[in-house]
């Protein structure tokens, strides 16, 4: 087991390294010279050289990449002498746009993305799994057909279209919600809840529809299993039969899919955050891309990849405890 985890960790390190390298090479070869951008309109060749020196842009690619990597673990120094700025580990550099520490920016915005992701996840798990379960139990009835029709429809709405439609109906037309704005919990729980409600609903809709369909299919498959016939032949109460024998086999695969989806969302719900103006990692990504802010782009890409690969590992480890067949063979 320990060897397995160690092997997986090595794999994660390799993948993250490759993501870093890939992102670095592409951006630093394709993007316009950051020194020119920082320098702005009143620019002199001397000033450009100075900026390049401070940022290390005069170094060869490989050295720059190495400095970037090591900075994450040991920090790095920018400039020299009186202008020396120390960037403590984990150092992801400074934004070309705002001169803020990228690490601090990430730490600042991660809670917003986490709030969006957690709220949406609670919603979609509740609605998706319940609707899927009901549909499976009432397979072929009008409820099943209606719910599955809605689920197909719901998973076909692009979330920005849903976001605009919801905003129009709830904010402009019916006026039951305030105009969306970034509100922190300390500004009052009600206002906070109201400001996050639409992002949650928008993000959860697609997933809820997907999970409803997955749950239904899995439960129907499980109900047809031979061990369900055994459970009935044993004279167990129907609720116990359902809860113990049907739900666990049916929901275990969904738990793994959920782990992956949730991990991906922690890296930022790009469109939802942008549409609702929520200052999360996703919006940070969109903004940095629009302004070609390379250190920030590097950071958000790396962060998102980190969540995906770590989420992958967590899912695999959790799966070994959820499914006994995997648990034993993994050893």
């Amino acid at each position, binding site marked *: 087991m320990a060897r397995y985890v160690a092997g997986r960790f090595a794999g994660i390190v390799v993948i993250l390294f490759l993501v870093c390298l890939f992102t670095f090479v592409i951006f630093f070869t394709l993007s316009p010279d950051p020194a020119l951008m920082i320098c702005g309109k009143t620019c002199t060749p001397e000033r450009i050289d100075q900026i390049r020196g401070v940022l290390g842009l005069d170094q060869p690619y490989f050295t720059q990449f190495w400095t970037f990597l090591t900075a994450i673990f040991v920090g790095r120094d920018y400039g020299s002498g009186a202008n020396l700025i120390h960037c403590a580990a984990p150092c992801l550099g400074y934004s070309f746009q705002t001169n803020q520490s990228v690490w601090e920016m990430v730490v600042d915005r991660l809670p917003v993305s986490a709030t969006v992701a957690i709220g949406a996840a609670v919603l979609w798990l509740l609605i998706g799994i319940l609707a899927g379960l009901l549909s499976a139990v009432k397979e072929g009835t009008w409820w099943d057909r209606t719910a599955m029709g809605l689920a197909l429809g719901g998973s076909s709405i692009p979330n920005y279209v849903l976001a605009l439609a919801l905003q129009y109906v709830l904010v402009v037309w019916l006026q039951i919600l305030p105009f969306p704005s970034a509100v922190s919990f300390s500004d009052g729980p009600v206002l906070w809840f109201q400001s996050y409600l639409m992002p949650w609903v928008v993000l959860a809709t697609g997933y809820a529809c997907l999970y409803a369909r997955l749950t239904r299919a899995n439960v129907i498959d499980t109900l047809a*299993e*031979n*061990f369900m*016939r*055994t*459970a*009935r*032949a*044993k*004279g*167990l*109460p*129907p609720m*116990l039969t359902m809860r*113990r*024998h049907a739900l*666990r*086999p049916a929901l*275990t695969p969904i738990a793994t899919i959920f782990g992956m989806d949730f991990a991906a969302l922690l890296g930022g719900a790009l469109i939802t955050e942008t549409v609702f103006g929520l200052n999360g990692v996703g919006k940070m990504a969109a903004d940095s891309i629009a302004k070609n802010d390379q250190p920030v782009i590097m950071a958000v890409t790396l962060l998102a990849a980190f969540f995906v690969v770590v989420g992958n590992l967590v899912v695999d480890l959790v799966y070994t405890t959820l*499914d*006994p*067949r995997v648990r*034993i063979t993994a050893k």
Partner: protein
Amino acid sequence: MSDLLVVEDLTVTFPTTRGPVDVVKDVCFTVGSDETVGIVGESGSGKSMTSLAIMGLLPRGAVTRGSIRLDGTELLGRGDKDMRRIRGNQVSMVFQDPLSSLNPYYTVGLQIEEVYRAHKGRSRKAARKVAIEALEQVGLPDPERRVDYYPHQFSGGQRQRVMIAMALVCSPALLIADEPTTALDVTVQAQILRLLADLRRESGTGMVFITHDLAVISSIATRVLVMCRGEQVEYGTAEQVFSDPRHDYTRMLLDSVPRIDDSPIDEVMS
């Protein structure tokens, strides 16, 4: 020997797109409280449907007519709640494929315990003790440890032993074994057959043994019912049916299997 199970004119009808189809038609047989009745037939002959009808586990939409009496009480037309008290308790069942018939997510101990607890209402601890005893009874070595194993950790024959332990844990009056040896290796088949016969004799349970294999039935059953396409084509004592088959279909079945007159399982009958 009193009549434990009396099935009279049992008919099971399924609605299909082409109108109702009788999958079981006017089947009559009796199982004594201390004997084995074999039901033989090819796949699709209605033998499994007959057993599911006794358990009250027919698929939704199936219509039953006739009468199934267990110890003199009518089972047909009973509500699901009533039938639940009978299933696993007074009548229990062993299925063909033990791997898929056991839930892979739970230990065999839990799966045995839950039957006992559902019907006898005992504590987890008491049920665990009973489960270990049941595993020991079916000849599983080291039952204290194996009670916490998962189904995939057993061999095919061992899994079927677990299924038998599970079926007998509440000391039912009737055991229905639906092709219990079909999915097993030939050598293991003989062991399981002997185990079933021994346990049945020790506990005085009546048994319905369903199979397509005449060699198996000849060794274990006292009475035989031959089914073909839902209909009962022959019914009598094992000797009668095998030595003097009245019906063409039985004769055809008998001809299609090589008789193994001195197979080791014949010892079971003696």
